[in-house]
């Protein structure tokens, strides 16, 4: 294809140098870093190699012939300029024109300075005026009309050309390295608006009135695909869609900067029996003055300089299940993760260690380590909640004589060696079954107001009882259960709603006095893999 003819035609129509390269279909990023020089080079080269074909290619009605003739003398000056200096490109509406970039760069710099990201790379995205897309279509159709072999599907998208040109300039201005959105966690989005957009798009309505009405009803913007996408040049012309010289240029109206979320994973040990996992609110009033979540959030919010209000919507707590307010979580603790939205940076190893110390200093919650993880790894947490076994330590009290005690004449209710032996031998499953106890639990009354009433089959995998020194009526149990087993309800039987209960196993009335989670069997945090975060 004759590149020079394309450039010539683009120039005649009023395109800027960068748009000329776009219509040539150039996808070489460096070409866009110095468009003027590149356009010049092409003109010289095509002048050398393709002079014979040029005149034939060019439609006579558009051919001003001087350019072609000149090019045979290795033309030192650029092709005839249709837009005067300071003029606005009919296609990009100024988006790709260097003289318009300073305000954009300044706006980005201002936002970046305010947010203070430490990330050394960035990716940029453009929200372009729809009118620029419509105008692009018009130019492409004109090219196809005038240069028969022109491939109108090869036009380099405005956004790409913008990244390769403006993006490079922006990188210099803000002192960061431009990278692809798939690599850099920091995304800078510029919203460019064209003041005459609405009136210019008005003509498009005529092309597909029904589609436009539907989009308008749905509260959507004018869409180039709604009319101009498949329309022919004639149809666009008939509808009065024109791509004349713009009176004003597109301007940057806002800049949005966002850093990909940070996910910190760890395990918390809860040492308090008066601490809910998340803020416990009843009718908007707090029932407890703190929570595991708040204790973990506090130093993270401080590290990122988040106000309490900002922390509320920028930090998110996730965990593999939860324990009751009055239940401690010991051992290695319960797996959890915190999502930090739009962080200014990745915390250092030292800072992560410091966070753990600050979380743990109050003595109610202990977090031994925090590590950054990928978003995809969060799925393990939820899976762990549903499938992983838990081990508990339960302190129980025997409240009535068991059948055997009565045979011996009663006296004070006490846990006998026979009780302990009976519990340690107890099973209601066939020998060899991996579970010791198969039980049916109705949804506990304490959660029945917000959960459906169901009778769930659950299994106790291990059960080990021991006497408590100097406390004849007490017994301590180590119980390993399937996920989703309500241990307190199993211990006291909940008015007979969990069957068989510990009381049934013992043949005496029993209640639970205290419960600790001893182990949540989920490998967490996940081993770091070398895969870079792929999401934005």
């Amino acid at each position, binding site marked *: 294809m004759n590149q020079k003819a394309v450039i010539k035609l683009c120039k005649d129509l009023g395109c800027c140098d960068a748009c000329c390269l776009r219509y040539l279909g150039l996808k070489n990023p460096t070409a866009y870093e110095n468009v003027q020089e590149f356009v010049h080079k092409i003109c010289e080269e095509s002048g050398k190699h393709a002079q014979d074909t040029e005149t034939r290619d060019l439609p006579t009605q558009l051919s001003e012939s001087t350019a072609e003739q000149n090019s045979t003398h290795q033309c030192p000056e650029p092709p005839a300029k249709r837009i005067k200096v300071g003029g606005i490109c009919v296609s990009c509406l100024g988006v790709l024109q260097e003289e318009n970039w300073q305000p954009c760069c300044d706006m980005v710099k201002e936002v970046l300075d305010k947010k203070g990201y430490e990330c050394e790379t960035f990716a940029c995205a453009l929200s372009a005026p729809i009118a620029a897309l419509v105008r692009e279509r018009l130019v492409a159709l004109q090219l196809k009309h005038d240069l028969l072999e022109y491939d109108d599907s090869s036009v380099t998208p405005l956004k790409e050309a913008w990244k390769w040109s403006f993006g490079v300039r922006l990188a210099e201005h803000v002192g960061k390295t431009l990278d692809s959105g798939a690599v850099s966690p920091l995304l800078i989005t510029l919203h460019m608006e064209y003041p005459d957009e609405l009136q210019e798009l008005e003509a498009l309505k005529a092309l597909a009135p029904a589609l436009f009405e539907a989009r308008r009803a749905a509260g959507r913007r004018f869409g180039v695909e709604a009319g101009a996408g498949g329309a022919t040049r004639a149809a666009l012309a008939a509808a009065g869609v024109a791509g004349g010289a713009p009176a004003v240029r597109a301007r940057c109206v806002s800049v949005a900067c966002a850093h990909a979320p940070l996910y910190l994973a760890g395990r918390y040990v809860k040492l308090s029996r008066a601490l809910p996992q998340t803020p416990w609110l009843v009718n908007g009033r707090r029932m407890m003055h703190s929570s595991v979540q708040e204790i973990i959030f506090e130093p993270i919010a401080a590290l990122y300089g988040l106000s309490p209000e900002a922390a509320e919507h920028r930090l998110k707590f996730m965990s593999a299940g939860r324990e009751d307010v009055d239940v401690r979580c010991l051992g290695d603790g319960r797996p959890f993760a915190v999502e930090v939205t739009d962080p200014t940076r990745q915390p250092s190893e030292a800072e992560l260690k410091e966070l753990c110390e600050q979380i743990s200093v109050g003595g109610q919650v202990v977090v031994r380590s925090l590590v950054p993880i990928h978003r995809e790894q969060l799925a393990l947490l939820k899976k762990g909640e549903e499938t992983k076994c838990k081990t508990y*330590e339960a*302190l129980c009290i025997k409240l009535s004589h068991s059948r055997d005690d009565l045979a011996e004449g009663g006296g004070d209710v006490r846990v006998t060696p026979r009780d302990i032996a009976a519990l340690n031998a107890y099973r209601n499953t066939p020998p060899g079954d991996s579970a010791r106890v198969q039980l049916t639990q109705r949804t506990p*009354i304490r959660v029945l107001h917000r959960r*459906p009433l169901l009778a769930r089959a659950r299994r106790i995998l291990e059960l080990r009882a021991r006497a408590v020194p100097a406390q004849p009526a007490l017994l301590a149990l180590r119980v390993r259960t399937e996920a989703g087993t309500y241990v307190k309800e199993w211990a006291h039987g909940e008015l*007979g709603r969990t069957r068989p209960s510990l009381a049934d196993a013992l043949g005496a009335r029993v209640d639970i*006095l205290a419960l600790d989670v001893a182990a949540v069997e989920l490998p967490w945090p996940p081993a770091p893999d070398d895969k870079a975060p792929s999401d934005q």
Partner: protein
Amino acid sequence: MTTMEPNILDSIPDLNNLKSFTERYFSKRYIINVDGVKNNDIMIMFHSNRIALLCLAPSHFFFSKSKEYKVNYTVGNVNRLKNAVKGKGKKGGQALNPKSVVCKIEYEDGTSFDVPCGMKGTLVEVNEELVNHPELLKEFPDADGYIAIILSSIAISEATKNELLTPEEYLDLLNNGVNGKEDKKLE
């Protein structure tokens, strides 16, 4: 950290002040002399989450009789054992009002009495265990011998709780005989 590893044995409470399961989670309220029948007294236990348990009050005349009895959950042509609820909202549960009969206690001699609901709500669950083990009703009236689980709106639950006799008012009435507070009963 050099703190001692916590152990469940460090959590032994004061065994002289233990609260039962019922006392830990429920507030008891009473209605006495329902339908003008002396000692036809019921107890409704409200969980802090507004779920209510229907029980017989300890002063119910039932506890002074030693005859054999059965608990019959078929009331008229409604079989309360067939009650079924679906989803979080407990859809499909039988509707109850304060006068609805939840079950009948039938003696071997053919006499019987009705247990009224005492509040407006949806029947969530009846205590099926009472059918085969009626003795639970007498042995553990405020625990395994509960009669039914009822769910009502927060508003109704709160209003009913405020309207019925508190344990103190109930004990006062029992100890001082029928006095000025007798009007606190079913309308």
